[in-house]
């Protein structure tokens, strides 16, 4: 079995795992980080989105072994020292979630959007959300939350 070493939410991990273990299953089943969800089979719903070296990726579309040496952040690692990330705050403030299932992936994707496009307008935000499907909100409040968080995150940095 291949051995993999990585940092997950800041903690070093060093374990052996079957090569065929998908990153999402590794996070959920091996590390107990069940905030990252599986919503489809084809890499389209985005519920499994995590950050790999700071970039949004779909953890259902890579094997854990491919993350060897990488820094992974999941939804559980987004809040720092008990303080919610501004994107988490914005989702709550703007009612950008209902059932909550797509939410972790949506928030991880949203943080990545703002990192790349801090001044994204509504149209851009909607295009950037192409890889994340929500069935509850009609996206209306998600778009609002991301725009608002972008403004807040910009002000902070």
């Amino acid at each position, binding site marked *: 079995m291949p051995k993999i070493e990585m940092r997950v939410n800041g903690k070093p991990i060093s374990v052996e795992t079957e090569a065929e273990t998908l990153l999402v299953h590794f996070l959920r089943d091996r590390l107990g980080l069940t905030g990252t969800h599986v919503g489809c089979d084809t890499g389209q719903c985005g519920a499994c989105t995590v950050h790999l070296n700071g970039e949004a990726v779909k953890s259902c579309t890579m094997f854990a072994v491919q993350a060897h040496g990488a820094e992974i952040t999941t939804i559980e690692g987004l809040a720092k020292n008990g303080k919610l990330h501004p994107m988490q705050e914005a989702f709550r403030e703007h009612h950008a979630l209902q059932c909550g299932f797509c939410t972790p992936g949506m928030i991880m994707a949203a943080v990545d959007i703002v990192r790349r496009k801090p001044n994204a307008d509504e149209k851009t*935000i909607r295009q950037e959300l192409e890889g994340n*499907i929500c069935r509850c909100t009609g996206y209306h409040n998600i778009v609002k939350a991301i725009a608002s968080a972008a403004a807040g995150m910009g002000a902070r940095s």
Partner: protein
Amino acid sequence: MTASLIGRPVKRKEDRRFITGTGHYTDDLSRPHQTHAVFVRSPHAHAKIRKIDAAPALALPGVIQVLTGEDLKADNVQGLICGWMIHSKDGSPMKAGGHPALALGKVRYVGDHVAVVIAETPAAAKDGAEAVVVDYEELPSVTSTGDAQSSSVQIHDEAPRNTVYQWALGDEKATGAAFANAAQVVELNLVNNRLIPNAMEPRAALGEYDSGSGIYTLTTTSQNPHVARLVLSAFVQIAPEHKLRVIAPDVGGGFGSKIFIYPEETVCVWAAKRVGRPVKWTAERGESFLADAHGRDHVTHGALALDKDGRVLGLRVKTTANLGAYLSTFSSAVPTYLYATLLSGQYNIPAIYAEVDAVYTNTAPVDAYRGAGRPEATYVVERLMEEAARKLKLDPAEIRRRNFIREFPHQTPVILAYDIGDYDASLKEAVKRADVSGFAQRKADAAKRDKKRGLGFSTYIEACGLAPSAAVGSLGAGVGLWESAEVRVNPTGSVEVLTGSHSHGQGHETTFAQLVADRLGISIDQVEIVHGDTDKVQFGMGTYGSRSAAVGLSAISLATDKVIAKAKHIAAYVMEVPEDDVEFKDGEFAAVKTNKKMTFGEVALAAYVGHKFPTDQIEPGLKETSFYDPKNFTFPAGCHICEVEIDPDTGVVEIVKFTAVDDFGTVINPMIVEGQVHGGIAQGIGQALLEHGVYDKESGQLLTGSYMDYCMPRADDLPSFEVGMTITACPSNPIGVKGCGEAGAIAAPAAVMNAITDALGVKEFDMPATPEKVWRALSGQRA
């Protein structure tokens, strides 16, 4: 006085766990020594099973057992049920074939359940399922709604011509007379396209059996765990009700699809005893496509009779409804009592006659999906109204105004008695917000850019708050549709509210807590809403049909009233004043004419300590229950207006503006209500433009079995929505609420299609309005 919590956009209590990834959905849960189930599914639309050979699967490492329908039979497990009896117009009961959880001799749709493989790991179970050899004798299939009755394919022996029932509602003779006297008749052929629900959390089940106590536990993705327990015990006979616990933890969306009692959940809980270990199953998305109950799928001919001024004289509707290969839990009620009863819309229509034939086909079962029957009804009525306006050259708002019901209560010719509404108000507000008066200019501007604009109305009504038990009982329902609640006050004054409603995105943990905190005058943080566990909550009919606030919260309201009454009684003794002198306000019990007062928390403690009142007259403790049965349905209504712009080069339809003005009665949390409207509209636009569950006519294969082919609405398919409200408080329940969960899905399809047909200048045009269909309509080519 503290400000009321009612009507305020209180941020959701449940959000913290969801935004931090610490919620607990079924698939997040694991048990020691659990096994994993994978189902062997039919690759054929219709086939006899000659033989199932499990030996190759059992030979694989990690495979523990392979179970089939014969094993269920050996354990006396019964088939799944349809809980609503419909009688045909000739008086005969509906013709229902058997619905075994695992096939017995025959499979009837692609994805049908043939066997289950239980193994040490999901991958081993998957390998096992691939290794089971099933010898099929393929049979011809029929999947299309319109072909089912004329096909020579016989899906269930019990149902000749694949016809489940031929049902009718209304006065055929009076309707015929209305048409005979009409100045104008408008007719339309309409298809209400099949939808696949796609809650983002796939269904999942974790079955457990405790051999010591003989208790089964099923943790599953359910909108109504008590109903699941009732059906699994009383009908499927897995275990007696008191030996079966059903838990629905965090559930990631339902939209109807998680109401039903499915084969997979049934098999997992039953197999837990067989295997002697917990059995876990989580659907892959592909399985959700194949085997979640689908929605809609109607073929309809509608005709509207009008006088020369555009007043409707009569409505005649003939619908064929596809129920799929088996009758799902509530399927029979959807195209009948949840559909034809709504055909009066917001209009004073003297005569209505509706005929509905329900048919079996070799497709996934069809059952309630967001709106359930009511979107189909609204679609028929509102497409016809718009067409009538065009034919009579009337303004679409004006023809509606000429027909609005303005006196309440109003008895329609199709059972329902509307209690209240103000349809002029919502129409007026929507027309204003949509800037209808500026449309002609926008259309002209678009034309200069070679684009086509269209505007469409939908003034819808729905019957929610399901439902008065006696009323639904007289119509064939197998259960009552009340709701139960328990309000438990702890000695320290905090409160647990146990409700039979189930939240899977609706925000009950906040809305319900708002009401209770408001009534008791305590902080909302002191109130915990408990739901989704048959061991905790006394009973519940669950969440669907926009019923949770109107029925579930009404039950909570009544139980809270009882708590206050008892607390008052106790406070009077403690303060040594007559009970009539005790006033309860803002969380304090005050004795008038004295300066004595007690906080709610102090009374709670006194209730449990029991030192200062006669416990032979008043029981200690502070906990009350209520079973609330509604007096009537509720009737949310409103007006949605859609404006589209079409690119004639490609046929792409852009929703440039979508305006919704709804009357949901009293609003407890406008933020949550608006969120429900947004989601509903998105699903309605999805139906109109994008979504379509398609089976191949020849092979019966599902062609739209993944997100590669089933077109889910994404963020860039939709605009931001313009949402407003008008309010007439509902007189039929103690809170004044009507329900808001389905309005968008009900109203939007007709609004979008009326806008598209307006832009295209065509009469008949079916959903979904895909770019190619629109392009063909414009280029005059044959599809």
